[in-house]
């Protein structure tokens, strides 16, 4: 099949349902009727093209891209990994947009009313692009956990939000990366909204090879987007 052939379907064994009542706001916001199948046309085989030209020099470094009078507080981290498709092909020149809370568990978003301090030197958003082997990396500080009103004494585990397009609009993925060993994972209805056996794919691995000595703890996190309805091309 060609490089522009149809995409494999969203794998509903991996993907969460629209309505997952433990996550309360899905009750009124998740579509309830069956999705209608659609034979892919050129409208589905294409999508927004954003590559290296979309990324500024500090966009990949959340510890530097919003400094006012010093370094942001927190445990410095580097997150690195690959973006692949289901057939194992690396996806080069693919934009990743990321955003997160600061080290205290506070978002700069004006709607976040959590009583934890903002960090004047940390915005918490950035982006990066994969190289020719599908690899990406960015620097940040480890985001803190924060409370939310979904259920009594509810706390979101530490996480970083990721947004990707991939090769087409229908390979779109918005997800969250979690941290290994977090005891809040098992209590989190958003994380547990993804099926067991697949939700674990959202947990990064601590990686000493990614860790930069005397500088930043390394986490590796690969992201897998939909593939093509074809075997990988032999190269």
């Amino acid at each position: 099949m060609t490089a522009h052939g149809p995409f494999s379907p969203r794998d509903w064994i991996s993907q969460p349902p629209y309505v997952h009542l433990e996550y309360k706001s899905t009750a009124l916001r998740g579509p309830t009727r069956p999705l209608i199948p659609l034979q892919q046309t050129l409208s589905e085989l294409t999508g927004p093209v954003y590559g290296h030209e979309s990324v500024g020099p500090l966009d990949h470094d959340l510890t530097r891209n919003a400094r006012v009078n010093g370094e942001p507080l927190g445990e410095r981290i580097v997150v690195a990994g690959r973006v692949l498709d289901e057939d194992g092909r690396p996806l080069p020149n693919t934009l990743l947009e990321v955003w997160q809370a600061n080290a205290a568990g506070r978002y700069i978003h004006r709607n976040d009313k959590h009583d934890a301090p903002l960090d004047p030197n940390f915005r918490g958003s950035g982006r990066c692009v994969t190289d020719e082997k599908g690899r990406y990396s960015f620097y940040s500080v480890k985001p803190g956990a924060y409370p939310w009103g979904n259920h009594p004494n509810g706390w979101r585990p530490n996480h970083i939000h990721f947004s990707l397009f991939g090769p087409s609009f229908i390979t779109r993925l918005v997800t969250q990366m979690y941290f290994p060993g977090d005891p809040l994972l098992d209590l989190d209805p958003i994380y547990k909204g993804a099926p067991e056996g697949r939700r674990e794919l959202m947990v990064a691995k601590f990686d000493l090879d990614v860790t930069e000595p005397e500088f930043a703890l390394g986490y590796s996190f690969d992201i897998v987007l939909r593939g093509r309805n074809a075997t990988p091309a032999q190269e």
Partner: protein
Amino acid sequence: MSPKQTPSQTVGPYFAYGLTAEQYGYDFDSIAGGQLADESVEGDRIRIVGRVLDGMGAAVDDAMIEIWQADAQGRYAHPADPRGSNAAFRGFGRLGTGTDPQNRFIFDTVKPGSVEGQAPHITLCVMARGMLSHAFTRIYFSDEAEANAADAVLASVPDKRRDTLIAKRDETQAGVVYRFDVYLQGDTETVFFDL
């Protein structure tokens, strides 16, 4: 064993300073917004206005809408389009619903041309707090009745739900406006496609 798709998670309530920062006034440039076409782009100027409504009919103030469309000649700015890309028109827009007093999204663009004989349409993706996965739909145009009647995708939709995909044309002093509300649930739940 081949790798498995990474599961989707909600965009959450706080996407704005990451994905739509300029629109919300955060100090970070955005890759896209509500203006898809500058003056150099050929085509009929249109505005697409709508809201996202939850199962109680309330307007959602923290949804994010993305649209993807062909240019007025029906060409996509993407390497899979054999006619080549249209450098002046990228065809992508993105807005949150949290800055307009009525929680509307307002895209200014050009009306897309027909693609591969289909009725003119725009692909729309909605995501929000409370949606663990995004949902895709299509915007068709009410003044394209003939093309709509011949469109295979519209024909695959049950008659009584087809109207949820048709944006209603209105000619205002400001120009041509198409109204397209996205109903996440309810009797008028928008048709979402398994794209």
